[in-house]
């Protein structure tokens, strides 16, 4: 790639100038990300802010407001803003310098350090960031085409920067992002109701945990709602819940059953509150046909939830795109082993429940029906899913025997027996045979 302007500076010509042009750099950067993920990356930053601001506490009072039209995208939050040092050293740099701890990026979901910039370039040709943090504030405005034209200048100048201001009240700290002069295709997508719906769904599932803690997210003035993850429980039905800590990561695993819903059955895996697997029924969560049977609709009640939490997001078992689990990481393999051995009793329960239908028994069905949907947070720790079957009453073992015979024969037998139903015909003819042929041994 020619970089004509620079050649003069390297007069010796003993080395080759391999620096990328900005054009090339931007193209590479945005190539692999889709539009929805770019917007999600920006929302992630706001959610990160909420985590830094409130730690493990509630997110009540915090909001992230998106406005999306075919002309612009704005995201407005009151989640703490970006400190000037973070902006200088991290938020606007390509790639991260130093350790995350240095900057106290507690429980951040954005550990790769390119998300925000990549999103800007993906979306439009002009972006503005206005931040009001605890003691700093700044505005940055970047017209991308101008910046691209200055090949040697990689800086984003502050339009305004104030440090060491008087302590700002929490409610007035926040970040406002605006992207305009949208790129080709982006405007069309942003104008499509269908795209907005997809984005809503994605945000809802990805940030379910944060929303359950009180974070209010809205798109074009419409608040997103989310349902709390739940499992059926009662005095006779006990979901499993294990807590494990390893290598600075806290893991919570819940397994049990919920309403029969084939689309919702499977495993849900979260990393620092972000959903990376949804209703998964693949080998990634153990459904490989050997350790656990392949998924089948009789498992439509199956639900499993895994929450990985760490102060250092690099320790979490997710891929760099944060959209999938890293199945080869030792941590994930260890947890998967636990997931698999926690699934077995649920699979057995659902298999038995399924067989009950055929035999007309209702023991497990009764247990399911009298249980209630409970939020995960109230479930007690318990190694394995279990249930208390009532003691079998009456004759301990019964077998069904059914047969088909020509209609006129069955009708004749029914009249002769005085039977009340076809089933009764079967019972009486069996009793007749048994009395005559099987009682003397």
């Amino acid at each position, binding site marked *: 790639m020619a970089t004509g302007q620079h050649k003069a500076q390297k007069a010796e010509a003993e080395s080759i100038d391999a620096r990328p042009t900005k054009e090339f750099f931007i193209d590479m950067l945005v190539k692999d990300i889709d539009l929805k993920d770019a917007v999600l990356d920006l929302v992630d930053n706001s959610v990160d802010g909420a985590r830094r601001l409130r730690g493990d506490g509630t997110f009540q009072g915090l909001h992230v407001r998106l406005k999306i039209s075919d002309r612009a995208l704005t995201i407005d939050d009151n989640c703490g803003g970006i400190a000037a040092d973070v902006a200088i050293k991290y938020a606007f740099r390509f790639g991260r310098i130093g350790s995350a701890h240095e900057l106290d990026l507690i429980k951040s979901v954005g550990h790769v350090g390119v998300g925000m910039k990549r999103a800007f370039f993906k979306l439009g040709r002009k972006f503005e960031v206005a931040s009001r943090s605890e003691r700093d504030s700044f505005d940055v405005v970047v017209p991308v085409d101008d910046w691209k034209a200055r090949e040697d200048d990689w800086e984003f100048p502050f339009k305004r920067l104030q440090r060491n201001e008087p302590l700002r009240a929490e409610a007035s700290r926040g970040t406002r992002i605006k992207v305009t002069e949208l790129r080709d295709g982006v405007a069309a997508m942003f104008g499509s109701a269908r795209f907005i719906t997809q984005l809503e769904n994605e945000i809802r599932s990805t940030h379910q945990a944060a929303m359950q803690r009180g974070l209010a997210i809205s798109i074009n003035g419409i608040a997103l709602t989310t349902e709390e993850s739940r499992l059926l429980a009662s005095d006779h039905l006990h979901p499993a819940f294990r807590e494990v800590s390893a290598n600075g990561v806290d893991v919570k695993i819940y397994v049990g059953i919920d309403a029969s819903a084939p689309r919702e059955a499977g495993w849900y895996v979260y990393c620092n509150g972000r959903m990376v697997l949804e209703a998964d029924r693949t080998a990634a969560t153990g459904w490989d046909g*050997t350790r656990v049977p392949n998924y089948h609709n009789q498992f439509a009640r199956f639900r499993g939830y895994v929450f990985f939490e760490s102060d250092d997001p690099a320790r979490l078992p997710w891929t760099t795109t944060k959209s999938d689990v890293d199945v080869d990481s030792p941590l994930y393999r260890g*947890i998967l082993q636990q997931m698999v*051995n926690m699934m077995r009793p649920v699979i057995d329960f659902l298999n038995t429940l399924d067989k009950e239908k055929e035999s007309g028994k209702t023991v497990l069905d009764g247990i399911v029906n009298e249980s209630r949907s409970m939020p995960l947070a109230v479930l007690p720790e318990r190694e394995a899913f*279990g249930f208390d079957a009532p003691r079998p009453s009456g004759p301990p073992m019964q077998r069904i025997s059914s047969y088909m015979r020509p209609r006129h024969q069955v009708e004749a037998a029914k009249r002769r027996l005085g039977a009340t139903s076809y089933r009764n015909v079967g019972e009486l003819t069996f009793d007749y045979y048994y009395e005559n042929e099987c009682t003397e041994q």
Partner: protein
Amino acid sequence: MSSQYETPNYPLRPAKRVQRKMLCEAFARLGQFAPLNRYRYVGFGAAYFTDFILLHKVLGVHDMVSIEREAEGRGRFLFNRPYRCVEIEFGKSTAVLPRLCWQKRSIVWLDYNDRLDDDILEDVTHVFGRIHDGSVVAITVNAHPLPWRPGGKERLEDLRNRVGKHRVPGRVKQSDLREWGTASVSRAIIDEEIKRAIADRNGLRPAGSRFMYKQLFNFRYADGQRMLTVGGIVYREDQSRALASCGFEDLSFVRTDEQPFEIYVPNLTYLERRALDSGLPRDGAEQMPLDWIPEREREAYARCYRYYPTFAETEL
């Protein structure tokens, strides 16, 4: 081959009895990890509970769980329960093992009659994925080859169907499954499953306290059907001292690799045994008496004389 000494005595299962005593002797050495009476025993007691009686009497284990898959005739099993401390959990082992508590050091003997299959391997994975350090697990499976047929592939196909194609090493051929070959391959598959379970589990462990597995048992015996018992101890890497002081390697039947210990119980009369016993244990390579008994039989006896079963008819 001298068949008069080899005739299998299926109803009495002498080799199985010998193995049971050997296992018990090995279990007794776990005391370096914790007093044995604090261990829990998990086994398949069936209606006889022979292993339960032995472990309770000899080792003082009093937390015992018998897994019984026969759901019908529960009454018989409950009736034959030898001690109050034996709990019977009805159900398939794949269903029962997950509901047991694994916070306690355990001696586990999964004594299947079946050929190796994926249910058995699921149990293996489950147990090794959860068991406390300082615990011992033994797995017994039927390793008798299917009947030979000309040009047939059923031994290999049967194995693949049972355990899943991906678990059978690619180098295994039909001809590798004859005689004791099925036992060798079964051991390799179980061993791999154990190591994988331990490796997965270590994903959650900090360096310095990772789990380790050391094979102790690789028995072969045939009271009719060829049987394989494989297993060993699970410990943490910081416990290698305790492991060393157990001195498992001093036990003549302990095998830590793919070389098996063969239990072969020759049929000898009481007088013959007395005569052989008087020269045992041997001091070096001296000749044993009774040279009309083939060398092989006498050697086999020397390997198991301390565990040789004595049968007598009594009026109870």
